[in-house]
């Protein structure tokens, strides 16, 4: 059993000694918020992730509940907050339900994606 204990300690030490330490990026919060109802059309989407992301491989699309695509800009990332992605919305949103589809690559190249809805109140 001595070898087993040595193996456990070695594996644990390797894990802790690893220099590159990043993770999957999941959506932490957004504006408009996931599942929220807002008054008036937002001018942009702001998505905050649990990890820093690579803007060149990240983006978000917005569509109406009926599936009609809404013009949206290219994703940009705050230099001071590299986990926050901004996407400008190309036109004013009418009252209704909208679906946001996002995809990001975290800086360790893990890819994640997701969708959520928000509502623009009349």
């Amino acid at each position: 059993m001595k070898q087993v204990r040595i193996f456990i300690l070695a594996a644990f030490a390797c894990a802790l000694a690893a220099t590159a330490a990043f993770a999957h990026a999941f959506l932490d919060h957004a504006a408009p918020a996931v599942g929220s109802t807002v008054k008036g059309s937002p001018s942009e989407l702001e998505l905050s992730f649990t990890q820093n992301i690579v803007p060149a491989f990240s983006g978000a699309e917005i569509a109406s509940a009926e599936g009609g695509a809404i013009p949206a800009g290219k994703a940009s990332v705050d230099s001071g907050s590299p986990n926050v992605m901004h996407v400008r919305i190309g036109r004013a949103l009418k009252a209704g339900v909208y679906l946001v589809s996002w995809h990001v690559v975290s800086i360790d190249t893990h890819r994640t994606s997701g969708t959520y809805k928000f509502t623009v109140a009349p």
Partner: protein
Amino acid sequence: MALHPNHGLGGVLAAALLIGAPPALAHTIVGDRVFPATLTIDDPGVNDELALPAFAYMTAANPNGSTGSISYTLGWEYAKTITADLGFSVGSNGYTWQKRPNAHGWADIETQLKYVFYQNAEHEFIFAGAVNVEWGNTGSPQSASLPSTPFSTITGKLYAGKGFGDASADWLRPFAITGEVDCSVPTVTNNADGSMNPTTLTYGATLQYSLQYMNSHVQEVPDAFKKLIPAFEAIFTTPVLNISTPIPGNFSPSATTGVVGPSVYYIGQYFEIGVMAQIPVNSASGSHVGALAVVDFFLDDIAPESLGKPLFGAAQARSGHY
């Protein structure tokens, strides 16, 4: 638990089955769904991670209804991907301290080869199978107060997992279920004392409600809850072949044992912490509510370019929308 002297080797094996569910470990991601490393059954994917420690506590019952032994176990598992769909793991139920009567010892080493047959990111569905070998006599010697099982056991396993992120009703989308069915065949069926080592069927399931998924996809939740996955779990073991003759005054050797209970998982960036209250389903399974807990390190996140990537080929794509 107190072992009846007449139980012999079969009794020792049966006792091993009765101390509650040992933690089953590993987490995986399919599409937008994180299946945590659940405590009663393994999750349905392959991954690079280290579960250390995995803790189990259970109080057994004696056949006469009195409280039996109390067991505390610290186990571990290291899982490594060979390819994106093929994984190898080595682990053990580790070291057990038992009270009433006092005993302690190391469990056997287990190795496992697991393959993901199919996964569908869009529908958050995954199906996998594995072959596990518990290598006999690799734990404490037979002279120890709590010896390891002296023979090897080969187990075939099937796993499935389904997240309901594709459901049309938003309230359903955070739910997920996982299941596992095992058939364990001992390499020695008859012991010198006349007792038998049964072939067993183990089956379990989890129902999960991911607040992490809810926060990202349905409705934002307060910060304190957004990394939690509450669940309800169950696991049962039924001897199906080579069952010993019942001994009056003892538990039936054909009795199904199992535990059920609520659990909750905290999913951090580099690790997971899980705890569960394991409630024995009958006196053959235990006398009081026990506990399971695990700290699971995500090596694919901690060291994505070394320990955390498959030995061959690219890492598993984690989502279907890019």
